[in-house]
């Protein structure tokens, strides 16, 4: 009696534990066996450009499942399926008569019409799953930035990955109540609807992106370069209008077999790699010096081809020297000696203070994966000689995006912007869920100083090394850069980074265009010759596309034949080019001219740039 009573109480207690305490969690575990589900994939949100053009979208296809246990006549089903899908009856019959499986995947990637036809045929035991396939409208276009998704539709790279949470949505399910072996019970189907992903509206303008894509592709093939990179940004807001990089890859046909090659092409150089900016950095030295009042525009400097700093002789790029020149001319000539002098006047402490204000000591904060920051010498370790080199863009490594943001601040009136790519996140009805607003990170120089910088840089394009970036009738400012590359701490012979950063209009800068060619092959490696012309091309197309009217007086060009300068002494050749009023670039330090560009007899105009290759002493 005692034993039986005892057992009854134990059982009662266990029942209470199972039914009341554990009830919910047991049910949750059991739910899985009570139902069969067909996934309802959420449609991934589209990626749109700033005008609403679709850059990345989704195709919806359907997968056909058959549950033999729920099929009343396998033959009828096979006949209907083979008719709609236009496939062999026997094959289908064999497929769906398989024993011991509760669910068979019969066909994938069906169109909506096929699915409807199968539903209309009235056969039972068939189920459809919705699949989502990502496509990129232009294929090899904006590839590094857009990124791609994996087989499950999750963003793996680029913006697809950065904004995955917004884009992916929430998958749903179609639940059918079944018995142990998968036979349907009541025929009741419950839906857990999928929530489609949100759309991502970018700041990118697909038309301007096309200009940039064309430019990087031509530059890559023309100079057989390692890479060509272009960024177009709104100088006032930081909104990225275009960002192109070659070589690239087709997002619709990704070769996942060669992962290392894919990864190298995927790397967005403009934000993930640092380089020595070279002369483009002089824009910042100019802005700092003017802001501190340590130099005046008309102040005269003398360049003898080199300057001795702390007992060390540092050469100007023009070994015969620029002679006596005003500061403004020094900027035009990109004279290293002038900027060494400025760096000395600024001093290391103030230089680093400004670097921080210009945003060179931290990431720009662009909304994309993989951004890196600059490599700067530790301030306490910077000697005067290092500071002098930093003054003209050496001994410092920054990302192109940091240079673009700092240059934008120098010319837009002194405001440091945060570059951004996402303009808005919208739902399927087009309503904005999230919107980006330009982030102002504070003022670094005064409006007045900025205006002076702009005026000086305008002269670089109208009169100096930036001539080829000019567009007749338009007001453009900018600066070239040609930097030697370092490999294992030494200068790598013949490896250069040629760049140009320009803006327009000078009076009210809106577009800032950065173009960089990494390791152009051949003797024409100067930024003025390699990068500047592409910036000019892009500006001219933007003006046409945006219907921006010319504001400047068009200087009538005179055309003439290029004289033969070969075998002349360096001195007389330089005098001859100066007399023609042409901008000159020199390669080598010797006394004789061994090659010239453009070739003798070619028709040139007074806007052309001449490159003379001198003998090696």
């Amino acid at each position, binding site marked *: *009696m005692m*034993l*039986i*009573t005892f*057992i*009854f109480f*134990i*059982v*009662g207690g*266990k*029942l*209470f534990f*199972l*039914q*009341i305490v*554990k*009830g*919910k*969690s*047991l*049910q949750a*575990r*059991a739910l899985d*066996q*009570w139902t069969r589900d067909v996934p309802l994939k959420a449609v991934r949100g589209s990626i749109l450009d700033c005008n609403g053009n679709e850059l990345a979208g989704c195709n919806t296809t359907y997968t056909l499942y058959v549950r033999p246990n729920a099929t009343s006549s396998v033959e009828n089903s096979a006949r209907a399926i083979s008719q709609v899908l236009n496939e062999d009856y026997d094959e289908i019959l064999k497929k769906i008569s398989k024993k011991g499986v509760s669910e068979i995947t019969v066909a994938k990637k069906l169109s909506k019409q096929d699915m409807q036809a199968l539903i209309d045929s009235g056969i039972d035991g068939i189920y459809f799953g919705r699949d989502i396939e990502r496509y990129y409208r232009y294929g090899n276009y904006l590839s590094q930035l857009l990124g791609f998704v994996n087989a499950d539709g999750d963003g793996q790279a680029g913006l697809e990955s950065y904004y995955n949470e917004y884009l992916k949505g929430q998958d749903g399910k179609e639940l059918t109540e*079944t*018995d*142990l*072996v998968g036979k349907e*019970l009541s025929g009741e189907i419950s839906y857990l609807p999928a929530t489609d992903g949100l759309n991502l509206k970018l700041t990118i303008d697909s038309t301007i992106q096309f200009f940039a894509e064309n430019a990087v592709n031509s530059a890559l093939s023309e100079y057989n370069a390692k890479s060509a990179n272009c960024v177009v940004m709104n100088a006032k807001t930081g909104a990225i209008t275009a960002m192109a990089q070659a070589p690239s890859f087709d997002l619709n046909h990704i070769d996942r077999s060669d992962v290392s090659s894919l990864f190298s092409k995927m790397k967005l150089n403009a934000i993930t790699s640092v380089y020595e900016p070279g002369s483009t950095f002089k824009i910042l030295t100019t802005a700092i010096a003017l802001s501190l009042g340590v130099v005046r525009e008309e102040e005269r400097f003398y360049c003898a081809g080199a300057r001795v700093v702390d007992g060390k002789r540092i050469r100007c790029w023009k070994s015969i020297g620029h002679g006596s020149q005003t500061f403004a001319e020094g900027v035009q000539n990109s004279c290293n000696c002038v900027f060494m002098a400025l760096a000395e006047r600024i001093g290391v402490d103030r230089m680093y203070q400004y670097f921080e204000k210009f945003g060179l000591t931290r990431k720009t904060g662009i909304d994309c994966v993989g951004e890196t920051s600059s490599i700067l010498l530790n301030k306490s370790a910077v000697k005067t000689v290092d500071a002098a080199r930093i003054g003209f863009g050496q001994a410092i490594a920054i990302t192109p995006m940091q240079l673009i943001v700092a240059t934008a601040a120098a010319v837009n009136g002194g405001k440091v912007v945060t570059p951004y790519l996402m303009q808005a996140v919208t739902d399927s009805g087009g309503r904005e869920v999230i919107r980006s607003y330009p982030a102002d990170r504070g003022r670094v120089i005064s409006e007045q100083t900025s205006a002076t910088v702009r005026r000086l840089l305008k002269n670089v394009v109208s009169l100096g090394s930036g001539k080829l970036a000019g567009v007749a009738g338009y007001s453009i400012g900018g600066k070239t850069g040609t930097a030697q590359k370092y490999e294992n701490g030494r200068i790598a012979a013949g490896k250069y980074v040629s760049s140009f950063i320009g803006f327009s209009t000078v009076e009210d800068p809106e577009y800032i265009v950065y173009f960089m060619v990494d390791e152009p092959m051949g003797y024409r490696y100067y930024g003025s010759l390699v990068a500047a012309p592409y910036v000019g091309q892009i500006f001219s197309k933007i003006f046409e596309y945006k219907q921006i009217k010319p504001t400047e007086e068009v200087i009538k060009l005179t055309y003439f034949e290029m004289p033969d300068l070969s075998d002349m002494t360096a001195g007389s050749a330089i005098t001859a080019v100066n007399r023609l009023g042409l901008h000159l670039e020199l390669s080598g330090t010797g006394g004789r001219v061994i090659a010239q560009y453009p070739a003798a007899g070619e028709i040139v105009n007074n806007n052309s740039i001449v490159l003379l290759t001198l003998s090696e002493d």
Partner: protein
Amino acid sequence: MRSSKSIALNLGVEAQKSILLSQSSFLSRAYRKRNAAIISLTLLLSVFGLVMIYSASSYSANKNFGDEFYYVKKQGVALFVGCAAMAGVSRLDTFVLKKMRYVILAISFVLLGIIFLPGLGMESYGARRWINLGFMTMQPSEVAKFGYVIFAASYLSEKGARRLRDIAAVLLPGAAMCLLIMLEPNMSITMCVMCVIFFMLLAGGISAGKMLLLLVPALLLVPVLILLEPYRLKRLMAFLDPWASPKAEGYQLIQSYYALGRGGLFGVGLFQSRQKYLFLPFAESDFIFSIIGEELGLVGAVVVMCLFATLIFFGFSTAANAKTRFESLLAAGVTFVIAIQTAVNLAVVTGCIPPTGLPLPLVSAGGSSLVSFMSAIGILLSVNRRGSNLQT
């Protein structure tokens, strides 16, 4: 009386006292009331069982036999036969049973032996437990356990359990029966019969020392059996964590848990079980209590347990008020069989002890089980009826 452990004996003495003390019709009414309660509970549980069998088996019966009433019909026939048997036995003088004790014991052994004859014995799920009678099957062990109770009650009422040879006389046929059932094999019924043997000896007034002498080797036998067939240990221990082997040993218990868990406090409603859709094996027989728990909830399950407890209470009360030592032992033995099998079934379904295949008396589907339990309850009725007749 010497043995304080001997419940039935003490109660029997009380019963004798009560005869001496009172001849009033008040007691006679008490016997009749007891019988009315036992009949009502029996019919209530078995009809309720019929409804639950329909709920638990209609889907699988339709799938396997094309007839959703397949089990209900069989159980209905058995219920009819069971009622007739119960009524018949209740009219029977229990002393006929006492006289025929050796015949009954012999029949029990013959039936258990027939299983092993090819053509008559039926094998299913890897065990020979049934005799195929062509039109129906029967499980001899269901009959044999009551046969043993009748024998033991008869013997012990005459000779007691004080001398070793008397103990042996009661123990040996039981042990032989256990051996035969073990060979089928049917471990759960074997265990039940073993429990019944000890209970009968206890009720028969065995001394504590001798009981221990028997119990210790019996308990030692358990690890030996496990060592002989190690798969048993694995099966035995699976109930502690069924999720360790959800597809094998733990499967059935997990499914039982799912059913109970879904039931909650008030259940999902009659016929609304989800687990009966082939998920829970033996939903209509050994695991019918899981379906009860799922459809009627904790409340329903506890009510069913209370009905059993009440039935068992009246069973023991019958034993306590029996007029003779034989009747007292008989009623106590019959009640104990019902009690131990109910308790073990509930404990298995709720995962308190290792899983064994044992039907829930009166409720689970199974014709021979129902008929033999109802016949046994008929014995209780007969004992009460005689008690009430003596009063008047």
